[in-house]
């Protein structure tokens, strides 16, 4: 019998891929018309056929499942992007980001200012390190950072996990083991999904509304169709999963985990500019800022064009829905670094908070190991995958690994089933 995979994001595609490769029948039901979930590539909005990565951008060092997949599928990466400079001793810490470019109050801080701020933060990190879950704001106030150092330090939360500084725990930025070296997919982040989807049976525009358990297997209901399956892999985001009915109702421990896993609220801004050489000369690898575009970085395109990608945290100011205003904010941050208004030739804003089948950027991983494990645990023949369910929460790598893990759970059940002697004896 079939396995139904809910969601054609990376977790769903890698689960389906692994099952398909093992000879299983698999159907992937995708609610939207898009492949790739939160690695969506937007086409037709940028010049020169460039793809706008509306969601995830980066492959990091250590994300070996993705890297191996890229090698096998011949997916090319961009030149390395270095968002966090090392400190003078070669380490990466919660102070490293302050050594990179910063735009504060519409002004680019000069090198000496940033290094002073970074030194202040570095000293405080060494003398009185943050506790793991202590928020960026709480730590910076506890150790008495100067207001400017505090603001600069707290800006980091806007990149990962892209949440307001009151909601970001210190472990996200210190000791800063992640993001030392990162790359982007040369042909868009969704090239991973496109490669993974080859040969799979995908049904788009099919939001799963509820799942009925049958005497054997499950019936999966979409708006105007239904599917039978022995196993189901639920790979939708935590919020989207909270919108699917299950009969019988999911056990208390599962809904509890779903209801205590907030997703960061925000979106992505992507703008294309002329004069790439000039912009990169002056603005390097981008900057972190105290504006609604909390951090932006660059990807080069053909004919001296440059794509700037930025992250926007929902601060309640409406900027995620006021696209023209948001793009002007990004222009101004770049101007602060280059000294003159950049020549924007295209741009868009993608708001993940209002996407019915997503509901946010990434899960906030506020419950640590235990919550991830509970989110991942199967309920009968219902298996669960997605970035929220595994280590490295909020990354493409987490999604991919979780999909393979869910597929393995099902394949192990199959093997047990086959090895059971006929007649049901134990």
């Amino acid at each position, binding site marked *: 019998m079939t396995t139904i995979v809910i969601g054609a994001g990376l977790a769903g595609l890698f689960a389906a891929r692994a099952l398909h490769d093992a000879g299983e029948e698999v159907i992937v039901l995708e609610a939207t018309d898009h492949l790739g979930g939160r690695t969506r590539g937007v086409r037709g909005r940028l010049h020169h056929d460039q793809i706008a990565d509306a969601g995830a951008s980066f492959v990091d060092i250590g994300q070996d499942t993705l890297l191996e997949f890229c090698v096998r599928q011949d997916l090319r990466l961009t030149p390395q992007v270095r968002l966090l400079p090392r400190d003078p001793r070669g380490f990466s810490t919660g102070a490293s980001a302050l050594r990179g470019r910063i735009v504060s109050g519409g002004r680019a801080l000069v090198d000496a200012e940033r290094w002073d701020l970074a030194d202040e933060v570095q000293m405080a990190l060494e003398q009185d390190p*943050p*506790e*793991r*879950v*202590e*928020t960026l*704001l*709480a*730590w*910076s*106030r*506890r*150790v*008495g950072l100067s207001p400017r150092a505090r603001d600069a330090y707290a800006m980091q939360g806007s990149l990962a996990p892209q949440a*307001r*500084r*009151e*909601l970001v*725990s210190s472990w996200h930025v210190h000791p800063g083991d992640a993001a030392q070296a990162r790359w982007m997919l040369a042909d868009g982040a969704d090239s991973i999904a496109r490669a993974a989807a080859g040969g799979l049976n995908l049904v788009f525009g099919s939001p799963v*509304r*509820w799942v009925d358990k049958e005497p054997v297997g499950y019936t999966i209901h979409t708006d105007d169709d239904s599917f039978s399956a022995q196993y189901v892999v639920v790979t939708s985001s935590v*919020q989207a999963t*909270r*919108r*699917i*009915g*299950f*009969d019988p*109702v*999911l056990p*208390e421990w599962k*809904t*509890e985990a*779903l*209801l*205590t*896993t*907030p997703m960061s*609220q925000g979106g992505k801004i992507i703008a294309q500019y002329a004069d790439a050489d000039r912009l990169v000369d002056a603005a390097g690898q981008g900057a972190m800022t105290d504006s609604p575009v909390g951090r932006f970085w660059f990807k080069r395109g053909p004919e001296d064009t440059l794509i700037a990608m930025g992250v926007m945290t*929902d*601060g*309640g*100011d*409406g*900027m*995620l*829905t*006021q696209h023209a205003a948001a793009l002007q904010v990004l222009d101004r941050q770049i101007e602060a670094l280059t000294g003159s208004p950049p020549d924007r030739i295209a741009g868009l804003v993608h*708001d993940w*908070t*209002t996407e019915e089948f997503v*509901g946010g950027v990434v899960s*906030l991983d*506020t*419950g*640590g190991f235990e*919550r991830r494990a509970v989110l991942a645990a199967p309920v009968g023949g219902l298996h669960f995958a997605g970035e929220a369910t595994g280590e490295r929460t909020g990354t493409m790598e987490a999604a991919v690994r979780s999909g393979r893990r869910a597929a393995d759970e099902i394949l192990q059940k199959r093997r047990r089933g086959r090895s059971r002697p006929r007649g049901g004896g134990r």
Partner: protein
Amino acid sequence: MLRTIDDEATIVVGAGLAGLVTAWRLQETGMPVVVLEGSDRIGGRTMTSRDGWVDGQFANYGGELIFPAFHALRAVCEELGVEISPPNVIAEPEPDDLSVVEGMVRAGNFIHQGTLVDRRELIASAARIRAAVEAHPPAPHEIVEQWVRRAGLDGVDRTAFRGVARMLTCQDTWDHDVHYLIGPAMTDIRRISGGTQSLADRLAMDLDVRLGHEVVRIRRGNGAEVETSDGRIFHGARVVVATNPYALSGIGFDPPLEEAKTSTVLSLLPAMGGKVAAQYAEGDAVREALNAIVYTDDEICAAWTCWPDAPSGPAVVIGFLAGVHRHVLADEGEAMRLLDDLVATAVGHPVTRLHGDVHNWWADPRFMSITVNPSEHSRPRIAAVMSGIEHDTHIAGDYTSEQLFGTLEGAVRSGIRAADEILRVPTSFSADDIEERLTTR
């Protein structure tokens, strides 16, 4: 000489309802109390807007509704002489109802796909909802939207069930469980007659409340040293932190706040949104249509008249804009247009707006939510963890009150509980005290 616990003040952080109740209770017993408030006003999410509204009317931007079970709140109001309005019926339950929703559907008005649903259809809908609850009994921990899907509700029934859930929680129906929709109906609501703010103002009347004192650091253990953003330092025997949860997680506690508390706060799902309010000239018609709560399947999930017993004059209507629709709050013109449309649909003809305003709690970093509504299963644990005393630090606020998250009553009860904790703290004995009073000579 015995030192008494009165030697040093108790410092209360936050002049919302919880903090004010704590401070008021302690001061009543003769203890010195200082309340530090970060903003320039008293009340926190107890907030009544009075400026700009004609005829002395007002709009409650925060807590407003008083349910029959709010005994502690009513007792405090009685003691302080704060007047509570007569009841306003919001539900017409019947004896064999299986959920809170049925009674609210019978008494409320519902806008489904832009049209006001007529009363006979609502009576029929209540019966169908009852049948659905009977056929698919919701588990208490079940997420509302998951139950709506499992039970196969559609049409007016789905609008009605979702509408009541959204109104009661200020959240999307996938962000909370169904437990409070099952059980005895709440038949009527009351309000504080002069606006909810008047309770906060009355509580603060004789208190030492310092406005504009944003607390950034609290050094605690062996007393508390509380520092504000402009460097002022207050010493106290102890501190009561009566802010909302997201302000708590941003204070620089030294030693740091217990990890369990921070993790608990960061795991809450906030009700992201705010209120939209407007005053309409056609007062009698608006009161007739909106004294009962109007629920919708649209951006503004519910709206009602803020002062239903006003004898005449214009009417003030309040609505929630929250969850996935919260972005509209940043566009005041659009928010007003939505409320105008809602009121016109409920009244049956266009209405004349005299004044209007939005209040965006989500955008305010001091709050970042209207409220929180944890699942029934997690409430006792959350309340226990959050209210646990550590390093001379007491925590108050509606989110520390087991069954009453997100209510005025929860805030009041948590304030009373924190005050009681402090009143139970025994006198401390110095070595000299012990030698003098207890050792054999």
